[in-house]
């Protein structure tokens, strides 16, 4: 047992820290620190800077232009990036579609799409969920009918994160209506500029516009855009989901969040003393910090076990459940810390909202974040679904 980083890993950490200090634009970092929504341009700018350094596709093999980092390296980056208030890397192209294309895509698809993910030509979004198909993803109804060298797609996707910025969407579609639920599904890449695609915003409870509905009406998609085999999409979808779930422990985000809570609680006055000295508040902070400390180690244990490239299954579910609970608890502490200043509606996304509340704690919209992050235990397979997986795996004997 050795809990410290190896000399190589330490050197890597120094490198990452230096890069972030030199190259992370301060205006972007400031927005992240204050939980202000990033614009498309902010995100693209940051992707380009990372790509320049060769650090955008951190988990891709080098043959595809990736950094091929070890799990520990990725963890180091995540922690340092969160600490420096770097934006998260938009995951849809890089950590979801990329691995699927590398494993199941044709050579042509790889040659065409992968470089475009790296250089920012394409912005991808994920078209899995539908109004009637959330946890029960396999009940999806959007259908694609083969017509010569095209599919004709009709249906509706929902909850499409950042779909308003995307020009491409990877979708699960039903290609065989007669097959058993999971067997008639295909994995299709759809250009969102094709006639018949319509994106409608959904405003979330904190006023942010991050998700959308996407409607397809007789959308023509070339058959080259089918990934793998027709009706085998479920396999690819599941592969993608295990990738989606790694990193959802969000240790870096939690660490940054905890720092913010402490910063606010030091500045906030409670009975003439800093709130951080209040025994009840301090106890709550300490408890979540203790949880997080253990979680960070759980996370390291799991990633150091994970065979290169393969995403862990059961462990990913555990990380997701625990990680989301911890992050949500930290959000709760942040909103408590600001006291009455939790009440202002600080979303920039809503028309008519004022610029910044004149708030002495400079805490940003922490209550909005508290509400927004209720999503962490809902999306990507809800915590109930994850617990179901853990129970099923452990009690059927296998792991």
């Amino acid at each position, binding site marked *: 047992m050795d809990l410290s980083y190896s000399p190589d890993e330490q050197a890597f950490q120094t490198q990452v820290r230096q890069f972030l200090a030199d190259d992370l634009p301060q205006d972007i970092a400031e927005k992240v620190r204050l939980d202000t929504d990033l614009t498309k341009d902010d995100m693209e700018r940051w992707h380009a800077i990372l790509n320049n350094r060769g650090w955008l596709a951190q988990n891709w093999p080098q043959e595809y232009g990736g950094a091929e980092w070890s799990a520990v390296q990725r963890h180091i980056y995540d922690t340092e990036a969160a600490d420096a208030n770097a934006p998260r890397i938009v995951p849809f192209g890089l950590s979801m579609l990329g691995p699927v294309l590398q494993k199941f895509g044709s050579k042509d698809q790889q040659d065409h799409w992968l470089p475009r993910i790296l250089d920012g030509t394409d912005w991808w979004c994920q078209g899995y969920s539908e109004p009637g198909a959330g946890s*029960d993803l396999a009940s999806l109804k959007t259908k694609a009918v083969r017509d010569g060298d095209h599919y004709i797609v009709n249906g509706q996707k929902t909850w499409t994160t950042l779909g308003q910025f995307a020009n491409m969407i990877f979708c699960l579609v039903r290609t065989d209506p007669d097959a058993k639920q999971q067997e008639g599904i295909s994995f299709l890449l759809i250009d969102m500029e094709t006639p018949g695609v319509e994106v409608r915003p959904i405003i979330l409870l904190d*006023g942010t516009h991050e998700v959308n509905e996407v409607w397809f009406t007789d959308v023509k998609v070339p058959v080259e855009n089918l990934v793998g085999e027709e009706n085998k999409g479920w396999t690819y979808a599941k592969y993608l989901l295990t990738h989606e779930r790694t990193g959802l422990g969000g240790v870096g985000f939690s660490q940054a969040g905890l720092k913010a809570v402490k910063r606010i609680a030091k500045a906030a006055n*409670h009975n003439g003393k800093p709130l951080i000295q209040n025994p009840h508040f301090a106890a709550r902070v300490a408890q979540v910090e203790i949880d997080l400390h253990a979680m960070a180690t759980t996370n390291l244990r799991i990633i150091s076990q994970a065979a290169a490239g393969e995403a862990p299954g059961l462990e990913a579910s555990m990380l997701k459940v625990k990680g989301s609970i911890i992050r949500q608890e930290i959000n709760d502490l942040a909103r408590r810390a600001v006291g009455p200043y939790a009440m202002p509606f600080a979303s920039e996304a809503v028309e008519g909202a004022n610029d910044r509340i004149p708030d002495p704690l400079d805490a940003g919209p922490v209550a909005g974040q508290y509400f927004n992050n209720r999503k962490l235990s809902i999306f990507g397979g809800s915590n*109930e679904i994850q617990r179901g997986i853990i129970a099923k795996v452990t009690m059927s004997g296998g792991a």
Partner: protein
Amino acid sequence: MDFNLTEERQMLQDTLRRYLREQYGTARRNDILASDTGFSADIWAELADLGVLGALFTEDMGGFGGAGFDIAVVFEELGRAGVVEPILDSALLGGRLLAAAGKTDFVEQVIGGALHLAVAHGEPDGRYDLDHVNTTATDGKLTGRKAVVMNAEAADHMIVSAKDGDTIALYLVDKGAQGLDIQGYPLLAGGRAAEVTLDNTPGDPLGLTLEDYEAANRLALIAQCAEALGAMETATALTKDYLMTRKQFGRPIGTFQALAHRMSDLLIELEQARSAVINAAGYIEDKHADMHLSASKNLIGRIGRLVAEEAIQMHGGIAMTQEYELAHIAKRIVMADHRFGDTDYHLERFIALSAA
């Protein structure tokens, strides 16, 4: 022992519930939420016509209620419907302070729905402490800054606390008074508030002290607890309906025990919350009133968080959308904890008071 409402209160409850069910649906509320004023003058006037505002005042103040249970009945219904009109701050807190000051003509106008008030007591670094006042009063001129003042922009008059020497006293400040600056903003759970600065602003002394403020604040605590209870009832009811109708994996999700048991827990906790509100209203005249109020506010804060978070979780994504009723209700519930002292504040106060 009798846990039934009196006939009058039952009537008040029925009338108000029916009115709000008919007039304050999701669409109407969403329009009000999106409006510049953050509240509807029409709804306000109609509530006054229904006698809802009068129920917050005793007969000698010109009303026909004013007891803890009258306040609880009204605010539970307002909470149930997710009403964003600042009746708590403007009519109850402001109105009862003016009643305490003997301003009968003003109170009459409040009850009639014609007069809007704001109470500017909290300050930027005061959190929930009632005795934290740095605003000063010198020869009737007020100087200082007040934080998150509800309804400041719409108010005709503002009641401002300030320190005159060592004593905290309350003053009436007119809208448009010299040196009064109001920076308004919308609130996450609806309605509007403002940061208010006073710079040598003339204020009319009301002859009220911090003790009077504390007395009115007790009523506000009952109201806030009851409002949160009403909102929790709605959140629970919406969730129950959703669990029975939303199907995944070919069956209603409420048939999954993982959710069914949690729904049962919510129902159990909801009964606890109801009892807490009854305690708050029933012990208002008791010598241990503050202890009971703190107990209630703490419990409501804890159960409120549970109900809001569980209701959202069990709904899945749909609950996260701004226009869905539950999103609004959940925000009302959680934000109630940021008013008149939060869960921790009242836990500490309970410890102090119950040890005494």
